[in-house]
């Protein structure tokens, strides 16, 4: 058996950042375990640009963004294993992993889980109708096109206006496919405005709001999609149907934190479907940290990187025995807030806190109100909030220390 101070599971953007930060904070004995043959995670198949504006103040492609962090990891001589999958993760932090050298067990003093997320698929959204080939998640199609160099589509309908769907729409168009439509069940888009503009509008691809797939038709390969319009309760409106003759349906209907490997550890799960974490990304299991899309799904990789840094910082404090838990505050998302990260505040020594959250429904002209036991500690006005955009609110507690109890996040519409 191998012993490590810190094992980081996942060598994508969160894992790499966590490793770099932990090393900067003096942790020597670090191991990154990556299932793929290359560090960088899903960034390697995201060949479009737009990454790094927050952190590098320039627009990079996914592989370029990943490369910068890979280089730092290599320069700092942080140990990593590629083509290595986790078989199990058991209480006491025994990590069973497999690679060319065999199955090994590693004991870690501290773990940062950075396992990313997976895409909701046809089964998860109860797609109705036949079960032909030609139905892909957008990321799966992206892998075919960008990594394998295979075109799985000629005439395409995309369900869901999330960013991956929009970006794949452009990518498929550039590679010669005909994208007929993007359908979005909600009355608003779930992608960034810039992606609607540069991925759809630039190529005259129509976006149908309040439409979703009613029926899939095709015995072997997809032949047709019947799209139906939905009312405000998301029920189909009779007679409001559009038929698309197409061979491909791309699903871009959401991402879900991929945390089943943590099942044996007894983690508490938040409404974002990832583990509940405190302000330094530690889960309810002492010594188990988590960061990135396995905690909550981000829309910008830059924020994932920052979260990785935070987890790396927290894990270093944990390993150096410098964590003094002296607060007990539950952070609660209320009314139109679908989730908030962190879920717990435990350390009064952290003066800078950042709350990340999303709204359930779009809203305009609102105040974000953060309270500590009914005392308002921050109020921020926003012209508009969208579910597709993660919000960050930073607070500094130097002058008004937090009290045990609750922190709540509310959205209030201004009159």
């Amino acid at each position: 058996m191998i012993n490590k101070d810190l094992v980081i599971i996942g060598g994508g953007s969160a894992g790499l950042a966590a490793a770099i930060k932990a090393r900067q904070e003096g942790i020597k004995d670090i191991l990154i375990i990556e299932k793929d043959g290359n560090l960088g995670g899903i960034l390697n198949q995201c060949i479009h640009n737009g990454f790094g504006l927050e952190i590098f103040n320039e627009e990079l492609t996914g592989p370029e963004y990943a490369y910068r962090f890979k280089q730092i990891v290599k320069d700092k001589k942080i140990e990593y294993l590629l083509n290595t999958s986790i078989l199990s993760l058991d209480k006491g932090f025994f990590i069973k992993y497999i690679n060319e050298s065999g199955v090994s067990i590693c004991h870690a003093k501290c773990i940062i889980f950075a396992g990313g997320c997976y895409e909701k698929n046809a089964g998860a959204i109860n797609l109705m109708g036949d079960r032909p080939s030609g139905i892909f998640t957008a990321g799966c199609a992206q892998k075919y096109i960008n990594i394998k160099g295979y075109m799985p589509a000629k005439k395409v309908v995309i369900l869901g206006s999330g960013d991956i769907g929009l970006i794949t729409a452009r990518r498929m168009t550039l590679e010669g496919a005909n994208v007929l439509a993007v359908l979005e069940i909600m009355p608003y888009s779930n992608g960034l405005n810039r992606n609607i503009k540069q991925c759809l509008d630039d190529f005259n691809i129509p976006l149908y709001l309040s439409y979703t797939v009613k029926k899939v038709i095709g015995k072997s390969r997809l032949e047709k999609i019947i799209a139906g319009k939905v009312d405000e309760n998301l029920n189909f409106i009779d007679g409001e149907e559009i038929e698309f003759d197409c061979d491909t349906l791309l699903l871009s209907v959401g991402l879900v934190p991929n945390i089943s490997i943590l099942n044996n550890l007894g983690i508490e799960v938040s409404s974002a479907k990832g583990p509940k974490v405190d302000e330094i990304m530690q889960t309810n299991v002492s010594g188990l940290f988590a960061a990135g899309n396995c905690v909550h799904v981000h829309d910008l990789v830059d924020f994932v990187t920052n979260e990785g840094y935070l987890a790396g910082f927290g894990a270093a404090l944990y390993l150096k025995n410098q964590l003094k838990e002296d607060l007990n505050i539950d952070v609660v998302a209320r009314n139109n807030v679908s989730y908030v990260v962190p879920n717990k505040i435990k350390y009064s020594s952290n003066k800078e806190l950042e709350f990340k959250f999303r709204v359930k429904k779009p809203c305009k002209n609102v105040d974000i109100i953060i309270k500590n036991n009914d005392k308002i500690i921050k109020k921020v006005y926003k012209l508009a909030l969208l579910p597709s955009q993660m919000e960050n609110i930073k607070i500094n507690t130097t002058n008004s220390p937090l009290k045990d109890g609750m922190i709540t996040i509310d959205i209030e519409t201004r009159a």
Partner: protein
Amino acid sequence: MKELTCIVCPRGCHLYIDDNLKVSGNFCKRGETYAIEELTHPSRILTTTMRIENRNSKLVCVKTNKKIPKEKMLDVMNEINNQTAKAPCKIGDTAIENILGLGVDIIFTSEVD
């Protein structure tokens, strides 16, 4: 008055441009530059992949090192598809110089040994 969605950053500001090319609604200076450019000569960075010579089906990622006119995107795609890169490829190195005489180079965005 024209309206545009800014694509410079993920904020996606809603821009208003009057007949004298005066821009409002932008959060930062870049939005103004974008709006004027978008109305006068819209251009984009193109990212795609390229085959590598003698490497079967292996691909390397590439992009234009500057924005290219929007209407030239498919032509540039075609030209990239017609060519193959030589490994090893280093990020930032030039794959195709001055593509289609546009004064823009195609550069590698991923590494291949």
